[in-house]
């Protein structure tokens, strides 16, 4: 780690974040499928086994329920585990542990057993890996009280969200969009911290608010640049935290622009985009100049061929079109 800001990949940022946590707190350990000898299925934990040894970089069997549950038990019993699940689709095999134990133990025990656990997993589509490796279920998880949901979209957040997540006494799920691992950005200086309770304004604008997170942030920023050439100044809000939602930031932006488009790689029906739209309607209905619009993934299992996968996902032209629609086709 150097003291100066330097470009690095999202993958490297995440790796450094894990390394830093292992160095800072001896209660931290990493556990999951192929995190050790293989180096992580997305190579995030490459080299960590050599540096920290097999007690702290633990390869697990393909037993999502057992190793996620073991992370919960270890957290209850004084450790600070980081559990890696290969992809969100596989996390469904551990859903019992995540919902019935991690999210529930504290409340059900009357406040006696906090679960200071971090679960990281890859999410999202775009790599032609078809319907069992491509879904975006973070909005689904955001339905559950008792857990927190983070979606780092930038190198800065990939580098800086993990430590506060580990310091949080609650179970925190971190969703890393698989297409982001190779993305590059400026690495934050050493000691830099981020707030894991707030959304962040990524682009200021006055005409329309575009809400995005994770894998859709870059597309949304591209759409905003294109809209600007047509004279539409879009504000881009990176939600970053899907539970608890930063409702104040969402409403503040809409109060300013009076128009909103929610971009979400999850499905439309019952998704996080629906929740955001509802909060806007509940919180600032009379300030809206147009109905809230949504750009979501088409309601299909993600197909393998590129043209169908592309057609299923939110894309820049659809975001631009939706924004134009809510501003009344200006430009």
């Amino acid at each position, binding site marked *: 780690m150097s003291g100066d800001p330097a470009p690095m990949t999202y993958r490297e940022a995440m790796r450094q974040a894990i390394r830093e946590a292992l160095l800072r707190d001896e209660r931290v350990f990493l556990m999951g499928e192929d995190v050790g000898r293989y180096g992580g299925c997305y190579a995030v934990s490459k080299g960590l086994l050599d540096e920290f040894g097999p007690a702290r970089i633990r390869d697990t069997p393909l037993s999502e329920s057992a190793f996620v549950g073991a992370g919960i038990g270890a957290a*209850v*019993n004084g450790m600070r585990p980081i559990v890696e699940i290969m992809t969100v689709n596989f996390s469904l095999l551990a859903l019992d542990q995540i919902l*019935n134990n991690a999210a529930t133990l504290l409340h059900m025990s009357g406040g006696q057993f906090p679960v200071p656990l971090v679960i990281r997993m890859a999410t999202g589509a775009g790599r032609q890996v078809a319907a069992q490796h491509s879904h975006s279920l973070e909005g689904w998880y955001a339905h559950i009280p008792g857990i927190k949901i983070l979606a780092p979209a930038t190198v800065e957040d990939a580098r800086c969200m993990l430590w506060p997540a580990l310091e949080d006494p609650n179970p925190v799920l971190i969703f890393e969009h698989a297409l982001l691992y190779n993305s590059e950005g400026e690495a934050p200086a050493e000691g830099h911290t981020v707030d894991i309770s707030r959304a962040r304004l990524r682009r200021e604008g006055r005409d329309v608010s575009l809400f995005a997170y994770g894998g859709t942030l870059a597309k949304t920023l591209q759409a905003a640049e294109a809209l600007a050439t047509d004279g539409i100044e879009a504000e881009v809000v990176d939600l970053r935290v899907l539970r608890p939602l930063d409702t104040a930031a969402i409403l503040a932006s809409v109060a300013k622009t009076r128009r909103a488009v929610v971009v979400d790689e999850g499905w439309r029906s019952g998704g996080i985009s629906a929740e955001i739209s509802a909060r806007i309607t509940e919180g600032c209905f009379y300030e809206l100049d147009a109905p809230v619009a949504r750009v979501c993934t088409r309601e299909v299992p993600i197909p393998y061929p590129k043209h169908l996968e592309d057609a299923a996902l939110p894309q820049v032209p659809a975001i631009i079109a939706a924004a134009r629609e809510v501003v009344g086709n200006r430009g």
Partner: protein
Amino acid sequence: MAAKRTVDAAATHGLALYREMLRVRRFEEKCAELYSAAKIRGFLHLYIGEEAVAVGVMQALRPEDAIVATYREHGHALARGVAMGPLMAEMYGKVTGCSRGRGGSMHVFDAAARLVGGNAIVGGGLPLAVGMALADKLRGLDRVTACFFGEGAVAEGEFHESMNLAALWDLPVLFCCENNLYAMGTALGRSESEIDLCLKASSYEVPAWPVDGMDVVAVEDAARRAVTTVLGGGGPIFLELRTYRFRPHSMYDPELYREKAEVEEWKLRDPIPALAARLREGGALPDAVAEAMETEIAKEIEDAVAFAEASDWESVDELERFVYAEEAAP
């Protein structure tokens, strides 16, 4: 003299075991009554008939050891030392309950007793226990986690995943399988192609011992040997505690799946009269002592009920408290 002292010590311990089983039995008999009176609501799963298992295993555990139990856990809580007042208040759903009344019968938690529930998802406690033991191992703490579950749980994937992980990582877990022959209403042979539970555990290289779960002395003896092995770094042990529940699965169960004669036959092996007979044989349980014990327990239960009755409900203002932690985790 030494021999006499040993006999006295054995008799005293025998009496303590008897007393503990009787406390659990009488407490639950009262719970059944309170359920009929609609003081206790929701689900109520009684442990009556199985008391020797929890009472026997608890003898082998030290205060620093941890327990993960199921939704049929009143006996475990009492035998572990959870006070009867807060336990009864929990049954009522009162704020003075050991889980602030939020869990009820199925979710008894007590941090001081290191009792981590009261888990009502069959098999759901096993991964948790494996993680508790992993933490102890990583922290270099010489502690054991006892994980109770029924034989129904062996059909769950979580059983197999947990056996494998505990054995693979040599974790200090004492798996206590309470085999009462029925998963709700499904007999073992109707749901499992292989009904030898010890064989299943052994297939994961977990040493597995069948134990007469109707004999509290045998249970204690097996649990002590198992805990010694686990604490010596021997990895997990699986105890198959062969027992029987005399009451229905829950208060809603019409028991269509088993013959009354079978229940009566098992009642002949009731662990409480069985131990009483042995104690009487050795002169350790004179009638006066037995009567005094019943009176004491009745008083304890009466006090617990009074405590629960007099306790407050949690304020609705606190409904959302502890969804998230209010302070940094220790």
